[in-house]
């Protein structure tokens, strides 16, 4: 009788241990926000409790918020200089503005990105992009009256996009735009750059097993707790698509997709998206999407925009000249192309 009791006790213990070990395993949590960079931000991660996850996610959101307020060109905030105030004219000229160190660092990176992409990524193109922005906003407010910006106006604006006229004094932490007609617009790199900076700060605190996704700008922080990489499915925007464009396995890398389906307006039945080629001053129409895999989400953001505005051959040459960067192109006809090392990240599903 005692033995039977013992067997039952053992069984009970076994079951109990099975349940408690389930409880101890880190669980997957996810939280999103609409507050940053005019897109949806999702933080996903493994934590032992909702509270532990919330603390980390809140910190990511809070840091992203700081970058968002510094880099936005559409809002000014009391008692703070940001790119919106750098763009302002006072008595017909730009002031020399003392800014946060993070703005200086980002603009220095922007100049590097300009060099890296052969001028396809130019944060001094705000004059041109603001014309497109105005027509897109009007076109969305009154779709029946949507129009394209007149080419003459775009060409006039394009006279004021010389990035060398963005003067940066690193010592004094100041920015001066020496062309009064010039405007900064960091939309092509701000998200990716901010995500990279936030990710690095979190990594320095030892955070791993998280993913920050700001509107298709995915940065993984380490692997999952079981040591395996994150499987990321790249969405196929085609209506009749049965599967993802690709499945990737990421372990600390970034994946950035620039797509014509992410932001656009419609004029006379045709979509006009937001990625403007600095040469034609029109939305680039080579591809439906371009995805970049590399370590830095900042590089990924700049390169995905740049490749979107180049032919496949030009883009491939650029990617193959860079270490640790791979790309996938989806043409408007639905054909997929890959750089030589892209398959190294691909996984079966």
């Amino acid at each position, binding site marked *: 009788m*005692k*033995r*039977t009791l*013992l*067997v039952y006790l053992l*069984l009970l213990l076994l*079951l109990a241990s099975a349940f408690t070990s389930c409880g101890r395993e880190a669980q*997957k949590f996810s*939280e*999103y*926000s*609409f507050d940053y960079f*005019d*897109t*949806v931000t999702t933080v*996903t991660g493994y934590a032992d409790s909702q509270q532990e996850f919330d603390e980390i996610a809140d910190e990511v959101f809070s840091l992203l918020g700081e970058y968002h307020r510094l880099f936005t060109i559409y809002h000014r905030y009391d008692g703070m200089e940001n790119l919106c105030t750098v763009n302002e004219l006072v008595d017909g000229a730009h002031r020399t503005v003392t800014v946060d160190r993070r703005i200086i660092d980002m603009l220095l990176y922007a100049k590097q990105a300009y060099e890296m992409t052969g001028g396809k990524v130019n944060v001094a193109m705000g004059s041109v992009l603001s014309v497109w922005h105005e027509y897109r906003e009007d076109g*969305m*407010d009154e*779709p029946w009256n949507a129009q394209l910006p007149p080419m003459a106006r775009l060409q006039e604006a394009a006279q004021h996009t010389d990035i060398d006229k963005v003067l940066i004094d690193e010592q004094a932490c100041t920015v001066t735009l020496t062309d009064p007609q010039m405007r900064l617009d960091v939309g092509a790199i701000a998200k990716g750059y901010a995500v990279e900076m936030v990710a690095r700060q979190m990594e320095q605190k030892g955070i791993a097993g998280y*993913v920050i*996704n700001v509107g*298709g700008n*995915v940065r993984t922080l380490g692997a*999952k707790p079981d040591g395996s990489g*994150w*499987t*990321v*499915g*790249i*969405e196929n*925007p*085609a*209506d009749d*698509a049965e599967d*993802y464009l690709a*499945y990737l396995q990421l372990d600390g890398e970034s*994946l950035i*997709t620039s797509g014509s*389906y*992410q*932001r*656009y*307006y419609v004029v006379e039945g045709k979509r006009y998206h937001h990625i403007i080629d600095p040469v034609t001053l029109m939305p680039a129409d080579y591809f439906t999407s371009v995805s970049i895999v590399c370590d830095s989400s900042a590089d990924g953001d700049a390169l995905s925009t740049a490749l979107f505005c180049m032919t496949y051959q030009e883009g491939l040459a650029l990617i193959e000249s860079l270490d640790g960067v791979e790309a996938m192109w989806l043409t408007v006809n639905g054909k997929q192309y890959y750089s030589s090392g892209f398959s190294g990240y691909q996984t079966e*599903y």
Partner: protein
Amino acid sequence: MNRNHMNNEKTSSTAGKGGGRKLRNDIIFIAALLCAVICLGAGFYFLRPGGDEVVVKVDGEVFGTYSLDRDTVIDIRTGKSGEQLNRLVIKDGKAYVEQASCPDGICAAHKPISRQGESIACLPNKVVITVQTRDADHGPDIVA
């Protein structure tokens, strides 16, 4: 002391006839218990409520959860007095936004979603519609 006692009992019980029957009963009982546990687990897995479903969140709060197995139309009304609308349609196991009050209409142009992790977001109305399938473990961790 205790250990000796247990060993003694073990020897005596397996030796006797009555002990053999007892052992058999124990085995049957344990097997039945294991079966019950497995059935319970399987029941939880296969019969858990919802199955494949879409979760609608508005500005971070859950607005509703709807089965993908039942065709339906849901008006997601948001804004101070419900003036904003995203009409969610679930049909043939897929979910899509049929009509929306937002200015860009990007959510309504999005293709129907049905696979784990796929989502449709409406930025102006702060609506996110995400698919959660029963075999969530087999889909990608992230969709981008």
